[in-house]
C-alpha cells in the first residue's frame, strides 16, 4: 500500500498525480467520523424541534420524558438561556441581529427550531422519550418568501422589526449613472438563485466530554473551522478558551455548511457539563435539511448598459437575500461577496448594487460552495448572454471583447478588488477548440432545421479565492503551519487549515517533501485538533492550499535555514547547501543527512551560534490579496420538446487555478464542483410552502445528482501562476460550481432561443421547460 510515485531529484512531486495519503483508511472503513466515537459512559441526546415555522410556546411538559427509565435529563430553553447566543461573525452598518438562543425560549422562528433536548443512556431511549415531551404551541402567521417578507403587511418574523429588513447595503464604483446615460442598449432581467441544501453525505454530529477534574471541555464536531469553533464555543459556554478543546475527526463533506457555529455544538457542551458525562448527538438527514444552513436564496434584479458594439459600460443590481430567521456565522456577509464578484472577468468599471437582507421564517442561509460568487457569476454571465442575443453577437465574441487584457493586471475593479493575474481568453479559446465550437454551431443550425432543440452555452467565470486578507475576513484570513522534523528525520506538518476531502494531507506532504527533499512517506500532515495544532482559521473559500500552502512554504523556508545551520556545524563548514534531504559542504563535498541534522538538533550536545535546540518552525502567513482563478465552461444540451427534459451532450471545463500541485486532486475538485453546479442548474431546490414548511425535507424530494444524472466532464487547465503567494496557487474548490450553472442555463436558453426564450430561472425542471415550450417561449 505504497504510492506509486515517490520523489526523486529529477522529479519533484509538485505537479504530479500523487495518490492520496488519506485514502487507505477511507477505502477500508477504518477512518473515524464523529458518529464512530464511542466513550465509556457516553450518553445520547435527541432534540425536540418545532413543527411550526412561527409559533409562541405556551408551555412545555417534560415530566413524562424525565420519568422514562434511562433518561438522565431534559433541558428546555429556560434551562439553557444563559448559554450563547449563537454567534454572527459578520458585521454590516445598521445590521439587526436577533438574539439567537441555543434552545427556543418563548417563540420559534422556523420549522425545525430546537426547543428541548432529551438526554439518555442510549439513543433508542432518548428517541422514545422525545416523543413524550409535550410542547404547547400557539401558531403564528409565517412568511417564507423574501420578496413577500419585505412587502407591506407581511407577518413579522421578529416582532421587533416588523419590516423584516435585517439590513440595507449599498456599494458603487465608477459612475453608473453616466454609464447608463451613455448606453446605447439597456437590458433588465430578474434572475433568481434558488435556496439550496448543501447535503454533505455526513450530517453534522457532536460529541462533548466534560472533564470535571480539569474543568475542561472537549468537543468533537464535524466542522470546517475547529479553532474558530473553539474560540466561539468557549465564549458561548463561559469557559476559558485554553480549557476548551475542539477535535475535528474525519469530516464527511462540508461545502460551507460546516463553516459555522451551531446551537447544537454549544448545547452538547452545556449538556456534558450538566450531566458530567460524555454526550453524543448525531444529526438525522431530516434535521440536516431543516436545521443546517441552506445556501443561495437570491432574487436579483439586474440592469446592464452597453454600446451596440457589445462594449459593456455598467451594471446595476438590486439583490434581495433570503436570510432565513437568524444570522448564522456569516449569513449577512454572503450577499456582499456577490457584489464584489459582479464585474466578472470584464473591464467595465461602473457598478451600483443594493442589497436588502430579508428575514423569513426559514432556516438561515449562509456559505454554500461558492458563497455569493456563484450567484453573481450566474447573474453577469446570464446578462452577457442576454446582451449578446439582443445584439446578435456570438456569446464567445462578446466575452473576448470585454475581457480584461493580460497587460492590464493587476486590475482594480469597480468593487474595490485588485485582480492578481489572468489571461482570460486562454481558457475560453481552449474550450472552444476542444469542443469544436464552429462545428457545433453548424450542427446546431442543422438541428434547428430538423426541429431539434440543441443549445451551446458558455460561461467565463472569475472567482475570489484564498479567503482572504484579514481585513476582509471576519476573525482573520491568515493561515498557519508548523513543521517539525522529528529526531529520526521524519517530518510532521501541522496545518491550521482543516481539510475534509480536499486532500491536503497529500498536497501539503508533496510541498514538504519537495522542499525538504524527503520521501513523501516520511511526511505526515496533522490537522483539526486544537490541542495538537497551532491556531488556524480553517478550510473554506478555496483557501486550504492557497493560504495554508504558503504558510507551510514559509515555515519550511525557516526550517531550512536552521537545517543549514546545524548542517554547517556538523560538517564544520561555513558554506553548506541543503538539497534532496542532504546537507553538503560546498568546499569538501562532505554530506550529512536530515536525520543526522535533526538528531543533533534534538540531542543538542553542541549548538550552532545563537541557535536554540530542536527542529521546528511555525509560520502564520497573512495573504496580501485574494487570488482570482478563472475559467471557461462550455455545455452542449438538447431539450426534449415533448417532455422538457434536458440532456447534457458535452461538458467541457477549462479551469485556471494557478499552479497545480496535484492534477488528480484538482480534477476531482472540478468534477465535484460541476456536479453541485449542475445540481443547482437542473435539479436542486429547497421548497418551502407559504407557511414555512419545508416540503423537500428528505433526499426523497431533494434531488442531488446521482451517477446516472452526471455527464462525462472533459476537464482541462491553463496555468497562470498567482503572484500573490510563492507557490503561485489560486485555489480550485469552488470553480466547478461557479462555472457550471450559467453555462448550463445559457445552453438551454440557447436551445430555446428560436422560440424567443430570453431567460429561465433555475432549476430547469422538465415541467418548467415544457411549459415554456407550450407557451411558445413565453416564460
Amino acid at each position, binding site marked *: *500500500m505504497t504510492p506509486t510515485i515517490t520523489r526523486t531529484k529529477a522529479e519533484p512531486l509538485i505537479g504530479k498525480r500523487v*495518490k*492520496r495519503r*488519506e*485514502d*487507505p*483508511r*477511507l*477505502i*477500508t*472503513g*477504518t*477512518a*473515524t*467520523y464523529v*458518529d*464512530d466515537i*464511542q466513550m465509556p459512559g457516553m450518553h445520547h441526546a435527541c432534540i425536540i424541534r418545532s413543527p411550526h415555522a412561527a409559533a409562541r410556546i405556551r408551555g412545555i411538559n417534560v415530566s413524562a420524558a424525565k420519568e422514562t427509565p434511562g433518561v438522565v435529563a431534559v433541558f428546555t430553553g429556560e434551562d439553557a438561556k444563559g448559554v450563547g447566543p449563537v454567534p454572527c461573525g459578520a458585521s454590516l452598518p445598521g445590521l439587526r441581529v436577533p438574539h439567537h438562543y441555543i434552545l427556543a425560549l418563548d417563540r420559534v422562528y422556523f420549522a425545525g427550531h430546537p426547543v428541548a433536548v432529551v438526554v439518555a443512556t442510549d439513543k*433508542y431511549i432518548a428517541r422514545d422519550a422525545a416523543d413524550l415531551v409535550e410542547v404547547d404551541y400557539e401558531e403564528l402567521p409565517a412568511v417564507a418568501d423574501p420578496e413577500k417578507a419585505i412587502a407591506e403587511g407581511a407577518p413579522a418574523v421578529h416582532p421587533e422589526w416588523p419590516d423584516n429588513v435585517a439590513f440595507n447595503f449599498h456599494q458603487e464604483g465608477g459612475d453608473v449613472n453616466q454609464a447608463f446615460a451613455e448606453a446605447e442598449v439597456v437590458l433588465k432581467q430578474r434572475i433568481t438563485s434558488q435556496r439550496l441544501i448543501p*447535503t*454533505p*453525505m*455526513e*450530517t453534522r454530529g457532536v460529541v462533548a466530554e466534560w472533564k470535571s477534574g480539569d474543568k475542561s471541555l472537549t468537543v468533537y464536531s464535524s466542522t470546517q473551522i475547529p479553532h474558530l469553533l473553539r474560540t466561539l464555543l468557549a465564549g458561548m459556554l463561559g469557559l476559558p478558551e485554553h480549557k476548551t478543546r475542539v477535535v475535528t475527526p*474525519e*469530516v*464527511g*463533506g462540508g*461545502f460551507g455548511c460546516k463553516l459555522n457555529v451551531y446551537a447544537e455544538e454549544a448545547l452538547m457542551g452545556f449538556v456534558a457539563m450538566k450531566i458530567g458525562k460524555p454526550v453524543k448527538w*448525531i444529526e*438525522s*438527514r*431530516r434535521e440536516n435539511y431543516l436545521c443546517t444552513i441552506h445556501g443561495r436564496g437570491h432574487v436579483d434584479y439586474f440592469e446592464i448598459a452597453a454600446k451596440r458594439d457589445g462594449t459593456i459600460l455598467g451594471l446595476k443590481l438590486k439583490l434581495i437575500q433570503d436570510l432565513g430567521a437568524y444570522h448564522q456565522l456569516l449569513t449577512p456577509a454572503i450577499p456582499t461577496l456577490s457584489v464584489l464578484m459582479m464585474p466578472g472577468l470584464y473591464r467595465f468599471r461602473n457598478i451600483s448594487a443594493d442589497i436588502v437582507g430579508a428575514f423569513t421564517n426559514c432556516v438561515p442561509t449562509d456559505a454554500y460552495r461558492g458563497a455569493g460568487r456563484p450567484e453573481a457569476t450566474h447573474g453577469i454571465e446570464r446578462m452577457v448572454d442576454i446582451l449578446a442575443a439582443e445584439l446578435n453577437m456570438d456569446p464567445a465574441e462578446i466575452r473576448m471583447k470585454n475581457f480584461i487584457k493580460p497587460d492590464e493586471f493587476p486590475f482594480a475593479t469597480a468593487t474595490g478588488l485588485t485582480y492578481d493575474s489572468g489571461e482570460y481568453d486562454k481558457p475560453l479559446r481552449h474550450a472552444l477548440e476542444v469542443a469544436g465550437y464552429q462545428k457545433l454551431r453548424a450542427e446546431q443550425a442543422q438541428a434547428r432545421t430538423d426541429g431539434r432543440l440543441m443549445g451551446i452555452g458558455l460561461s467565463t467565470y472569475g472567482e475570489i479565492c484564498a479567503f482572504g486578507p484579514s481585513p476582509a475576513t471576519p476573525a482573520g484570513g491568515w493561515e498557519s503551519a508548523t513543521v517539525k522534523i522529528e529526531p529520526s528525520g521524519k517530518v510532521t506538518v501541522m496545518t491550521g487549515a482543516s481539510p*475534509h*476531502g*480536499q*486532500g491536503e494531507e497529500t498536497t501539503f506532504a508533496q510541498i514538504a517533501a519537495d522542499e525538504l527533499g524527503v520521501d513523501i512517506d516520511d511526511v505526515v500532515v496533522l490537522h483539526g485538533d486544537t490541542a495538537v495544532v497551532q491556531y488556524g482559521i480553517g478550510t473554506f473559500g478555496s483557501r486550504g492550499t492557497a493560504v495554508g500552502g504558503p504558510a507551510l512554504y514559509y515555515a519550511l523556508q525557516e526550517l531550512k535555514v536552521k537545517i543549514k545551520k546545524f548542517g554547517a556545524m556538523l560538517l564544520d563548514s561555513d558554506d553548506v547547501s541543503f538539497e534532496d534531504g542532504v546537507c553538503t559542504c560546498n568546499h569538501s563535498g562532505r554530506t550529512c543527512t536530515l536525520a543526522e541534522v535533526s538528531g543533533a538538533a534534538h540531542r543538542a550536545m553542541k549548538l550552532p551560534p545563537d541557535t536554540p535546540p530542536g527542529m521546528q518552525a511555525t509560520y502564520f502567513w497573512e495573504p496580501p490579496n485574494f487570488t482570482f482563478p478563472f475559467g471557461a465552461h462550455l455545455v452542449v444540451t438538447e431539450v426534449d420538446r415533448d417532455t422538457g427534459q434536458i440532456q447534457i451532450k458535452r461538458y467541457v471545463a477549462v479551469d485556471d487555478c494557478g499552479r497545480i500541485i496535484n492534477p*488528480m*486532486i484538482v*480534477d*476531482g475538485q472540478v*468534477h*465535484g*464542483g*460541476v*456536479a*453541485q453546479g449542475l445540481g443547482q442548474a437542473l435539479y436542486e431546490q429547497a421548497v418551502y410552502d407559504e407557511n414555512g414548511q419545508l416540503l423537500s425535507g*428528505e*433526499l*426523497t424530494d431533494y434531488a*442531488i*445528482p*446521482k*451517477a*446516472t444524472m*452526471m455527464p*462525462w*466532464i472533459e476537464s482541462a487547465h491553463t496555468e497562470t501562476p498567482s503572484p500573490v503567494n510563492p507557490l503561485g496557487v489560486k485555489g480550485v474548490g469552488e470553480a*466547478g460550481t461557479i462555472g457550471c450553472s450559467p453555462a448550463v442555463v445559457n445552453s438551454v436558453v440557447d436551445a430555446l432561443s428560436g422560440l424567443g426564450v430570453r431567460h429561465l430561472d433555475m432549476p430547469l425542471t422538465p415541467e418548467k421547460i415544457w411549459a415554456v415550450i407550450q407557451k411558445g417561449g413565453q416564460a
Partner: protein
Amino acid sequence: MKRQISVTINGRTRTDEVEPRLLLIHYLREVCGLTGPHIGCETSLCGACTVEFNGQAIKSCTMFAVQADGGRVTTIEGLASNGTLHPVQEAFWEEHALQCGFCTPGMIMAAKQLLDRNPAPDDPEIRHGIEGNLCRCTGYQNIVAAVRSAAAKMSA
C-alpha cells in the same frame, strides 16, 4: 423483547441478544464495532450503509438486525484479504474515486456487487449500478473510471 441472533460477519459467526427494532446498521456499528458502513439518510436513498447480506448488496439502514439471523454479512472491513486490498478498493485509490470518503465504503460495496454480476460493464451500466449510492464530492466521474479499471483488472 430481546431476541438472540446469530450472524456470520466478515467470516466470523457471533451471537447477540438484540431488540427487534435494532437496525442492522446500528448492530454492525455499535454492537460489532464495524464503523465502516455509514449512515447518511433514513430513507434508504444514500447507500452509505451498503453491506453485503447473503452475497447481495443491501442498505443496512433498511433492515432490522433480527432479519439477518442466520445470514452472512460482509462489510467494507471484510473486503480486503490478508492485508491485500480488493481490486475495487485498489482502483478507488488509484483513480481518486473519493474525497471526503463518507460514501466510499457503501460505494465500494455497490461497485463490487455490480462487478460480481456484470464483469465488463460499460459506462451507462456502471452509472446504473451505483445509482443507489450518493456521492456529493466526486461528481462520480472518477468512481466510474475506478469501476471500469477494477473490471479490467479483475478480468485480466
